[in-house]
């Protein structure tokens, strides 16, 4: 497990913890059943307040990523396929939005953009066949 907190990111600390652990779980870096440190041990290790760590864990638990065991620690729940799909859809939207913004700046039109996407899809299929 790896959590790197920025003091200057402008993102609340609990949010940073939540996002980093959430990403690690989605990518499989933290597998189902993996043990996470207790809220208090993590607060000690990151040198942050217990309330902050509690909030990060509570939100991860509410979103179905982890289960917490009072007085002990927490562990990673099996990935809910609907949840994963939702997270991935969000990633797709974010990526496409970034592409759209770049396209607008470069003056690239819809047809050309779709052409680029098609090209990428074909290249990936070609790679997969080989």
């Amino acid at each position: 497990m790896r959590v790197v907190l920025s003091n200057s990111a402008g993102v609340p600390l609990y949010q940073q913890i939540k996002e980093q652990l959430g990403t690690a779980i989605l990518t499989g870096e933290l597998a189902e059943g993996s043990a996470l440190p207790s809220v208090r041990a993590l607060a000690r290790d990151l040198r942050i307040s217990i309330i902050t760590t509690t909030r990060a864990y509570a939100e991860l638990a509410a979103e179905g990523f982890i289960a917490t065991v009072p007085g002990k620690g927490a562990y990673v729940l099996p990935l809910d396929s609907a949840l994963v799909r939702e997270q991935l859809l969000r990633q797709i939207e974010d990526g496409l939005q970034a592409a759209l913004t770049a396209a607008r700046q470069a003056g690239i039109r819809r047809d050309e953009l779709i052409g680029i996407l098609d090209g990428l899809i074909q290249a990936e299929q070609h790679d997969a066949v080989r």
Partner: protein
Amino acid sequence: MSSDLAFALRGVGTAVAGNFRLRDVTFELPTGYVMGLIGANGAGKTTTIRCLLGMRRIDAGEIELLGHRVPGPVELRQDVGVVLDHTCLVGDWRLTEVERTLRPFYDRWDAAGYRRLLGEFGLDPRARVKDLSRGMAMKLMIAVALSHQARLLVFDEPSSGLDPVTRDELVGIIGDFLVDEGHSVLFSTHITSDLDRIGDYVTLLHEGRIVRTGTKDEILDAYRIVRAGPDDLRGLVGVQLIGARRTPAGSQALVRTEEAALLGGDVLVEAPTLEEIAVHVGARAPRREPDPGVEGDPARHASSLSTGGAS
């Protein structure tokens, strides 16, 4: 008496020298968390701590400590570890003698733990108390408190006079202590940077009164810092400027978040740091008696609709 509170002060008042007194001091800490007590020198932090520990008589209110009403039974002292800004141990004692002397007073003294902590803290058991640096003396007192297995650690100004490395060690020691959810920490400080990260709760004290108490995020959300041109913060209606500072180049003040919307568009409104809150709340009102119940320097305008202090 509620057992999920490490301590609670309710309406505590006590007269101190001169005309200084604590008035209606009310705040509490749930078990398992760390609270910072912030205030300028003379705000009443040490007096508050002495009341909490039963070292000073109170003439109003009541105090609950680890489920007992202060002063409580003698055994209560075993559960509280106190680290003051000076050591009360005899200077000629070696650290081994410190143990031999203190041990009989405590039922749960952990001799092996004491030796282990001295090692962890880099303290030589043969050293004499008087030869310890400020940081080492503090660590010795922490080692004593942890060895008698205190459940509440109370520090009075632990970080003042400590170098950054030792202050960082202290933050680590507090973190280790709090891994046990039955443990709680209160520390008074005027160095807020230690609290920025590890503080769960914050209590602001000014001129013997509680200005505000709550979780750190509640305190941070309650105020905004306002920066503006030299004349922008004048004649405001319904906004109390706390600790306003004016120079020919500009002005700056702290305001309550709910009043920040009344400031208009020409000023810069930002989230404050704990340090900025402490500075503005603690600012001394120039050439005037502090208004009872008003935070810091109130606006100088008659139009300021102050609703009074703690809310």
